């Protein structure tokens, strides 16, 4: 099994490697298109701004590589900004195009009419994820706490692709998204203690089952 963390200069790659190592797997960290094409699974991390993230992927030619890997059947796990980049568009500092692997948009909490403005943004800290359907990625995870740090959230166009939600500021938003083997989580599983490690184990299990 070849697991590759996409290195486009954003996100704490060291900690992702540590978390996968704890789950018994070695990850390769790379921005080499050939390495990404040969992967069974790509992990797309990311911390920072959407537009910056997309530009970095494009500058390395990795946006096309990730899309074609997904078409060829590689599993993908987007984390935090990495999940948001899977969507069509984002309104973070102007309108930006995402990878378009999952239909939907990325919005600021304050763009939600029902958002309680007294809730602090970013949404930073531990919060329950609320599973919306049975899914191998969420096996054994009934309302667990995960660690979130974000000001924007993804809204999937197809509600059946919302695997879990979370609630903040009176708003329920998508915390885990999935279309086939293209998956994303808004929180940081690598920083979410035993629950996060369980999700990573589940992801590894999904790839194993398909090999």
């Amino acid at each position, binding site marked *: 099994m070849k697991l590759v963390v996409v290195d486009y200069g954003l996100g704490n790659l060291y900690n992702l490697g540590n978390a996968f190592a704890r789950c018994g797997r070695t990850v390769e960290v790379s921005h080499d298109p050939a390495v990404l094409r040969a992967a069974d699974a790509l992990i797309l991390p990311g911390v920072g701004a959407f537009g910056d993230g997309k530009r970095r992927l494009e500058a390395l030619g990795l946006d096309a590589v990730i899309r074609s890997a997904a078409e060829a059947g590689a599993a993908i796990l987007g984390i935090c900004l990495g999940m948001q980049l899977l969507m069509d568009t984002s309104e973070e500092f102007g309108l930006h195009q995402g990878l378009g692997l999952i239909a939907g948009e990325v919005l600021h909490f304050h763009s939600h009419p029902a958002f309680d403005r007294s809730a602090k943004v*970013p949404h*930073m800290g531990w919060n329950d994820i609320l599973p919306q359907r049975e899914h191998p990625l969420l096996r054994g995870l009934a309302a667990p706490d995960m660690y979130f740090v974000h000001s924007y959230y993804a809204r999937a166009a197809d509600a059946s692709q919302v695997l879990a939600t979370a609630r903040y500021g009176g708003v329920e938003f998508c915390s885990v998204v999935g279309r086939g083997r293209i998956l994303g989580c808004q929180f940081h599983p690598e920083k979410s203690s035993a629950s996060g490690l369980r999700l990573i184990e589940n992801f590894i299990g999904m790839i194993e089952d398909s090999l």
Partner: protein
Amino acid sequence: MKKLRVIARLDIKNNTVVKGIHLEGLRVVGRPDELADRYYSQGVDELLYVDAVASLYERNSLTEIIKAAARRVFVPMTVGGGIRKIEDITEILHSGADKVAVNTAAIRNPEFLRQAVHKFGSQCIVLSVQAKRRGPGQWEAYTETGRERTHRDAIAWIREALALGVGEVLLTSVDAEGTKKGFDLELVAAAARVCAVPLIVSGGAGSAQHLVDVLRTPGVDAVAMASVLHYGLLTIGDAKSALRGDGLEVRL
């Protein structure tokens, strides 16, 4: 529902965890790896490492401590103490830390905060404020682990730093620090009123009731503890049970 965070603070000197009173008179209380493992297994929500010496030599050993912790501890880690340059932040984040806390360098040169936020993002940059009471409803920001005066009002300084984009504030009461006599609730409330980003309070935790009292203050997101944990007066589990027993939301 977002949970209140319970954070363990590890002050590091010569590869050991130390603890003082009012940030001074440091005594060795344990080994960094052992204490990190202990608090992680007890369910700590985050670890806060503070370089108690803040020398260049110390930095190298601190990054090794962080690297080792990042292999075993899967919760967020913040590192503070002696951060002066953008390169210091890069090095610490590359060791596996998620956030850095900046005090002295920020107050001497607020532009440094702006640069740090621009380069690493707000979510990475924590403003550390050491506040000492100067009179009724008045606190002064101190630097150099509570030794140096700045003649700046602590609350006004928090306001200014928020405008520069810091993503979180770590507030330490120098008066209460290490005393185990409870938090300076008046200071905490004053800071919470102006703090639009998550606020971590530190200094004075001595009992579960102290934690309940301070986390009941509107606008407080997290509490950082040291002595009370290191000396075994409370476990993370005890603290969380007490908070939950009082109707506060914590991660179990």
